[in-house]
């Protein structure tokens, strides 16, 4: 045996050496071509598809597939989207090697291109669900190309435009919406200040009313009151929404929103306005974030966005909503759309990275397990499967969660606002955290190639990092989730009524019982999975309520008691979010008829549920699972990995991201890196 190996080894080495000699550089013809020791084999040649990927894509993208593909095609074909040929394939991505100023300029040129093609038609002036869905689809597709581009659009249409639409009244709509849609004006949204971010009610900008002239006067009273991180303010925006305390006759009426012009049509900064740049950032340099100071800026009375409250010409404060808390809540409503789009776009970013890392792992080999044997495909290592496939399952789960979130946003009513607020907070935090984790894992799974900007995965980390912070810091949002659950709990106890809403109805049922013996069949049943998730949520909510009341019994205020209970609050927020996501997965699965597609969905759902159980120490800490149970869960995840492995390519193909939007390592990375592809 040994001698046979050694002779094979000799033969192998001789062959390699011969190859090198035969193709000495003095030969005229493409010297490196014939000595290719490795060749690229497209994964499509050896992987099989057990289900229709376009059916799966319909389930994931949910709406406007054809519109999405048109926009993908539009970007792929246009030079403003910076097409680059690598290994015979075209890739589009911004040139991140450009300076910050150049990147900002390109973002605006891309917007102009899309504007001319009618992408934004009806985004603000149109009505109806169909248009709303198309708008979301376009924004998602644009975000797959570049986060800066979608953020820039988000600020202009959703924040500036949304504020006018939701806080403004007819006079504002008539005056501003059409001009916004055509980019005759460019809007931004000045809420955050240097000293106040998540705590909007604490902002320090002050506005008073001058009844002699019928104007509001806006001031930045101190440095911590400068508006900060205002997207669009540094270079392009002509107008802004200003959030400010409104002071009428010496009494503070709380935070209100105003319209102010900050640049003239030629782009010169207006008098009484000072603007500075936030400077280079770790990512998102295509967005011109700036800082604004107001110096006795006078604006007409009509520029108060008056859907919630108004000031009469003689300076009387008028509001239908007497409670300042409720008034303030009404002002935050447009931020919900931001959280919805952020959550959804985070998952598209995860899809880019997983499609890239998994395609690469189906073509890249490393180490042989037999002497002189072929090297093993990365994804055939159980350890590599274990790194990527649970993240793939979670991405699927969160795709369905994103779809559900969009649905409740589109169908929102005044009654559903609370649910929308809680679910959007929970999902925004969970999905963006998941994205950051997925990007890092995929970056590492691509090895050194993951570090190249052209391969996108590594770079996306810095582009998407901001998502865990803007439109509500993730930690703050999750605390709000637990706070809302607690309020629900307290109210139910007080009224002695069953739980209704937020998916808490399971609290009315008997406590789920986890079997002591967890067989594979049990572990993969929805009954067990949802039971375990509900058990965790129920118990944590009970514990959290008990802890808060204990603190209060010791004389702590409600607010401080809540701060002290942060650990359970975090656990509870996660439990709520995981359970809600699992439910959306189960609902999506239920719409699919029996067949290969449903089978693979059920594998992913189990993988999602069991991975969550494995990752959250609460299951063991509070004994929802015994140590024996936990071991069984862990073992099952491994089994699921090997069962999902054959579907890996089909599952990432179902994302429907065209090849031009992934990086060269997702395709023929040998050709893309060959000597002949080097620009000589």
């Amino acid at each position, binding site marked *: 045996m040994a001698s046979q190996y050694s002779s094979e080894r000799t033969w192998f080495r001789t062959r390699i050496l011969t190859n090198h000699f035969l193709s000495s550089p003095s030969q005229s013809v*493409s010297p490196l071509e014939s000595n290719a020791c490795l060749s690229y084999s*497209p994964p499509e040649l050896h992987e099989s598809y057990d289900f229709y990927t376009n059916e799966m894509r319909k389930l994931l993208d949910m709406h406007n597939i054809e519109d999405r593909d048109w926009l993908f095609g539009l970007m792929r074909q*246009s030079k403003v989207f910076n097409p680059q040929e690598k290994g015979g394939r075209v890739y589009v991505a911004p040139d991140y090697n450009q300076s910050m100023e150049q990147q900002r300029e390109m973002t605006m040129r891309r917007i102009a291109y899309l504007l001319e093609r009618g992408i934004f038609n009806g985004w603000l002036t149109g009505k109806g669900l169909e248009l709303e869905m198309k708008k979301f689809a376009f924004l998602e597709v644009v975000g797959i190309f570049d986060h800066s581009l979608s953020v820039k659009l988000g600020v202009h249409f959703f924040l500036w435009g949304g504020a006018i639409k939701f806080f403004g009244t007819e006079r504002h709509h008539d005056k501003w919406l059409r001009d916004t849609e055509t980019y005759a004006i460019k809007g931004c949204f000045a809420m955050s200040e240097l000293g106040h971010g998540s705590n909007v009610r604490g902002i320090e900008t002050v506005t008073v009313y001058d009844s002699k002239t019928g104007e509001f006067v806006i001031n930045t009273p101190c440095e911590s009151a400068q508006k900060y991180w205002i997207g669009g303010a540094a270079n392009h925006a002509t107008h802004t929404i200003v959030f400010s305390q409104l002071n009428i006759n010496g009494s503070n009426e709380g935070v209100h929103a105003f319209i102010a012009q900050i640049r003239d049509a030629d782009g010169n900064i207006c008098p009484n306005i000072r603007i500075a740049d936030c400077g280079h950032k770790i990512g998102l340099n295509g967005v011109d974030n700036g800082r604004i100071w107001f110096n006795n800026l006078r604006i007409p009375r009509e520029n108060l966005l008056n859907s919630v409250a108004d000031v009469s010409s003689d300076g009387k404060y008028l509001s239908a909503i007497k409670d300042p808390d409720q008034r303030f809540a009404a002002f935050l409503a447009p931020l919900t759309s931001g959280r919805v789009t952020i959550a959804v776009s985070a998952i598209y970013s995860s899809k880019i990275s997983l499609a890239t890392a998994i395609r690469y792992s189906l073509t890249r080999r490393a180490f042989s397990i037999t002497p002189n044997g072929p090297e093993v495909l990365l994804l055939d290592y159980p350890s590599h499967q274990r790194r990527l496939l649970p993240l793939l399952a979670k991405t699927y789960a969160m795709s369905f969660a994103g779809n559900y979130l969009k649905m409740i946003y589109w169908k929102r009513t005044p009654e559903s606002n609370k649910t929308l607020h809680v679910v959007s907070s929970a999902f925004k935090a969970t999905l963006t955290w998941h994205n950051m984790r997925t990007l890092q894992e995929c970056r590492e799974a691509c090895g050194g190639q993951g570090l190249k900007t052209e391969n996108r995965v590594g770079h996306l980390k810095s582009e998407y990092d901001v998502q865990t912070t803007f439109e509500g810091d993730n930690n703050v949002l999750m605390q709000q989730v637990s706070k809302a659950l607690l309020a629900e709990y307290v109210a139910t106890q007080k009224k002695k009524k069953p739980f209704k809403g937020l998916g808490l109805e399971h609290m009315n049922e008997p406590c789920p019982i986890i079997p002591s013996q967890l067989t594979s069949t049990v572990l993969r049943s929805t009954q067990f999975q949802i039971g375990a998730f509900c058990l965790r949520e129920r118990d944590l909510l009970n514990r959290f309520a008990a802890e808060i009341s204990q603190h209060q019994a010791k004389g702590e205020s409600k607010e401080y008691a809540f701060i002290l209970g942060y650990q359970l609050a975090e656990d509870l927020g996660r439990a709520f979010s995981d359970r809600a996501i699992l439910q959306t997965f189960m609902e999506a699965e239920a719409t699919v008829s029996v067949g290969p597609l449903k089978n693979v969905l059920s594998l992913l759902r189990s993988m999602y549920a069991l991975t969550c159980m494995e990752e959250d120490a609460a299951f063991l800490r509070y004994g929802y699972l015994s140590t024996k149970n936990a071991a069984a869960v862990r073992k099952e995840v491994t089994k699921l990995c090997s069962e999902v492995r054959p579907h890996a390519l089909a599952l990432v193909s179902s994302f429907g991201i065209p090849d031009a939007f992934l990086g060269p390592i997702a395709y023929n990375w040998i050709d893309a890196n060959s000597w002949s592809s080097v620009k000589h």
Partner: protein
Amino acid sequence: MASCTSASVKAQDDQVLVEETLSARTLILNRPRQLNALSNQMVSRLLELFIAYEEDPNVKLLVLKGNGRAFCAGGDVSAVVRYIREGDWKLGAKFFAKEYILNYVMATYAKPQVSILNGIVMGGGAGASIHGRFRVATENSVFAMPETALGLFPDVGASYFLSRLPRFFGEYVGLTGAKLDGAEMLESGLATHFVPSAKLSLLEEALHKEDSSDPVTISSIIDKYSQQPYLKEQSACLRLDVIDRCFSRRTVEEILSALEREAMNKADAWITTTIQSLKKASPTSLKISLRLIREGRLQGVGQCLVREYRMVCHVMQGKLSKDFFEGCRAILLDKDKNPKWEPSKLELISNSMVEQYFLKVVDEEWEDLKLPARFHLRICCCKALSISF
């Protein structure tokens, strides 16, 4: 015989002539009176030869050309129409299946194919050449995908190669059926080289002497005889910005109104011609063709052919529309050039009607096109890509 350096003609199959030289095989489409339109027999023979040569280690290079003033004017549509009239559209389907498989084999071929396009290259002729590695245009080349005027749509893998032309040139060529000359073919990437016809015999001689499958070598040989042709002043290739502004639109209706807006701003014969060709074409064809090209842009050549096969079967089955029969009647048979399309207007064709063409054909015996397993997935046939513009 086989290793003989001088050309020897095998006459056993007169619709496709074969010349054998050292390592090259020259296949000559030989139905000059029908402008070398691809018959069932020709497609079968080509497929057979391509498959055999791929495995034959003595063959390194294929040259494909046409006898007479055409390279190939398309598929033999009149035969297909005959099948359908005789009540058997499935015979037509078989023809298209074989033709598309040939297109697929060419697109994934391990050895270089040099197509000499010294004359008409339309429809099926484009399918038999553009998928190959090298396409040599001359001053006699005339390229077009005229299917929408016939109530059909650009098939033979056109949704793959048209969609990969620079910017929105593919939509323009595919929807209007515009004719391109050799210089335009080179400029747009449909051709990889332009060689004056006077130098073709020298080029062929040089290829016959070559004993390599290496694309770089073959390319450098063709380069020696190549020229940079001049684009005519009225060339569509010099109007990419207008094409971009109009043909990037989401729907056919929007494309037309964008063109009409351009026409209002500036009187221009080219725009008028473009609008007229769109108005003359079958509205159904335009809508399905646009969607076809758009979908094709994001897919591989295999997926494109599978989809085109579904669509061509719908067209032949004639349940969704009879425009193809009407087009053949008006253009090929009665030659009155006045087809009566049904539906007659773009706005009468809903999305869901278009959608029907992309679904499987409901018929017990029908199944999707089965492509052979291939081990060489070459990815993009077009030289120019989006970047050179």
